[in-house]
């Protein structure tokens, strides 16, 4: 059986989250390159998952799906996109069987394969066929592999138990701390999908054991790029390929195709399948960009040399053959040298950017300097000019990626060098000034 791919669901959710309600059904389907029928089917499946996972959305409510996944800050404790990772399809009999096996092992019980088989057959609803021994044994093998159950030490027949020491051994108070820890780390660090899953399971467990009147969700994260979670779908297969030095093959949709965009008037992000390009590259690094909340893959392409891909544009990823260690090391060294001075991922010529930052007027706190120190990466403050201003200097590959950051300081930042950047800044401020001219 072909491996189930979630590319469609990921593209779908990304578009829904980013454009939140901008498109009609038809426009949405067009931009994804799918039929209205497929659009409806996808929505139906996603709704079903959300309903099962959160049990809060009766269909009759008629709430639009887009509404459901719309981001609302004070209601953002549960990650609304996590349900994507619950989308793997499973036959009814299989989900019932596995849940019966796990239920039988609750409360620290240890059981043999045959005892588990009996428990499973005895509780299987009449309309579903009872499993045979081979099936149960293969389920147990799978559950052991994913670390959900463990074999007890001792002679045959082996006894199995749930690998849920976390809830068995920790006190209620400790579990609450663990829940908070998972919440904080999943929200502030990458990768996070496993953290959100752990948080989710702990939350359900705490809700079962705590009184109704307690408020479990206490934390908020300001300016969190929550849609970054969607790209973690590909992260682990790419990291595995890097570890094994394997090439990857994928269909790539470049998010920036200005020309094709202009002629076709479609959003380049969501072009039709047929415009994707097949790419083969040796993956070397995965980059998470905190400025936009986006992911990139950096690698080596036999024809193009160092290549950069936006992860959101990568679909149908497949592993290819391994490359020799020596070759990989060589590309890695080359890539590291070329990106050592990248504000994000630019591998352009290295230039020294110098800018003067002005202290805020009449503020008790020098928040401009604080922000430069916090966000200025490896740049240095080279000269403090009394109470008025300071000089900041950084060597970067190209000026394109640092420019928005410098501009975000408004008139508190004056670019001194290089001259072309200074000129570009002036031109851009002139254009912006034009936008806001009183008519």
């Amino acid at each position, binding site marked *: 059986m072909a491996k189930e791919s979630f590319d469609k669901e990921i593209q779908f959710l990304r578009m829904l989250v*980013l454009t939140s309600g901008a498109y009609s059904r038809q426009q949405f389907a067009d931009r994804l390159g799918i039929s209205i029928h497929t659009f409806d089917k996808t929505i139906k499946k996603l709704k079903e998952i959300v309903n099962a996972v959160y049990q809060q959305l009766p269909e009759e409510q008629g709430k639009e799906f887009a509404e459901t996944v719309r981001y609302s800050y004070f209601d953002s404790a549960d990650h609304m996109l996590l349900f994507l990772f619950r989308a793997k399809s499973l036959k009814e009999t299989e989900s019932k069987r596995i849940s019966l096996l796990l239920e039988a092992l609750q409360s620290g019980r240890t059981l043999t394969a045959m005892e588990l088989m009996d428990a499973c057959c005895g509780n299987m609803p009449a309309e579903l066929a009872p499993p045979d021994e081979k099936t149960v044994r293969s389920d147990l093998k799978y559950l052991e592999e994913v670390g959900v159950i463990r074999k007890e030490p001792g002679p045959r027949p082996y006894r199995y138990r749930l690998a849920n020491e976390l809830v068995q051994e920790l006190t209620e108070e400790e579990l609450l701390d663990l829940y908070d820890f998972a919440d904080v780390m999943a929200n*502030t660090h990458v990768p996070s999908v496993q953290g959100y899953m752990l948080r989710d399971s702990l939350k359900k467990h705490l809700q079962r054991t705590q009184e109704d009147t307690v408020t479990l969700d206490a934390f908020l994260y300001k300016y969190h790029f929550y849609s970054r979670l969607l790209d973690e779908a590909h992260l*682990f297969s790419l990291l595995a390929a890097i570890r094994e030095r394997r090439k990857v093959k994928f269909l790539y949709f470049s998010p920036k195709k200005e020309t094709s965009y202009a002629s076709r008037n479609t959003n380049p992000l969501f072009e039709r399948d047929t415009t994707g390009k097949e790419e083969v590259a040796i993956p070397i690094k995965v980059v998470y960009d905190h400025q936009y909340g986006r992911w990139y893959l950096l690698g080596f392409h036999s024809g193009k040399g160092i290549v950069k891909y936006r992860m959101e544009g990568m679909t149908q990823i497949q592993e290819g053959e391994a490359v020799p260690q020596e070759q990989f090391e060589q590309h890695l060294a080359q890539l590291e040298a070329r990106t050592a001075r990248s504000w994000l991922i630019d591998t352009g010529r290295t230039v020294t950017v110098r800018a003067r930052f002005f202290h805020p007027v009449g*503020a008790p706190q020098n*928040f*401009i300097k604080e922000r430069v120190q916090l966000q200025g990466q490896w740049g240095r403050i080279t000269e403090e000019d009394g109470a008025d201003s300071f000089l900041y200097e950084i060597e970067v590959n190209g000026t394109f990626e640092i420019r928005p*950051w410098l501009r975000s300081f*408004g008139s*508190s930042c004056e670019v001194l060098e290089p001259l072309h950047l200074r000129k570009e800044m002036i031109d851009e401020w002139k254009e912006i*000034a034009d936008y806001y001219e009183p008519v």
Partner: protein
Amino acid sequence: MNPFEKIFNYQLMSRLEDSGTFMVTGNERSWLKAMLQHSEAVQAFAPGTLAKLESLLEQDSLMETAGPLIQKAASKELQVYHPLLRQLRRSIMHRNQIKLSYMIKNGRQHEHQSGVPYKLEYSMVKKEWYLLWYHQRHRSLMSTKLQTILAIQDMPCEPERYIQLTASIEALLAKRSTSAVIQVVETYNAELSRILYAFSCFEKAVSYDDQLKSYTIKLTFLNNEAEYVLSKIRFLGKRIKVTQGDYLQRRMREASSLALARYGATPEREKGAVTATGMNTEAQAKAGADIVPE
């Protein structure tokens, strides 16, 4: 392991939830094991818990990410945990009131202020924790850095009283909510993805005019967040234009003219009207005044 394993299937999850079965995979434990290595993990637990967790996870592998996974343009990580989080989250959880003493900017202190804590907020930009609380005497919403808190005392709160206070908080939050409309300048429609990603950390609604091929983004935020919204707007520069929101428009107008004054340049339209060879004193005094703390 693939994050789409069948063990995470939604029907299976909901059956386990119904029967009250707790399930955790090796993958989640590997993640946890890696996170527990963070130097601030010790602050997240009572003494002894961290060691207990480490021994429970002894058999699990450590999730390896460093090396091939790199992060760029992040703020320096000043703080991930704060020692007061555990106490304050419990105050919120048990719906208590608190008496709070804290430092304010000019070095003075406020002592024994009664309030209701409602959320703990982490700023991903400043990498610091804040307590969001309702100041009972001033009837106002407060945001206090945990770093500046000197003492907290928990006070039980009658459930009816708590409901009233929560209603006041909600009403104040609703009052502080404001919005602005931002248009994607059509020439930059091709950069829509970049623009939408940049705004994806806000509450927003996007609309698209099929005839004009024009995208507009309506952002909703609390009025004390306007500074951060402005920094994002300046960040995106000429790609976007604020079309509704007097305050943001005025600030962008000021920012552009003051920035041009810094460079000794003038807006296109005023060329010839003023010959600015450098910044005049008035402009100098004003420049930088367009930026206030986020």
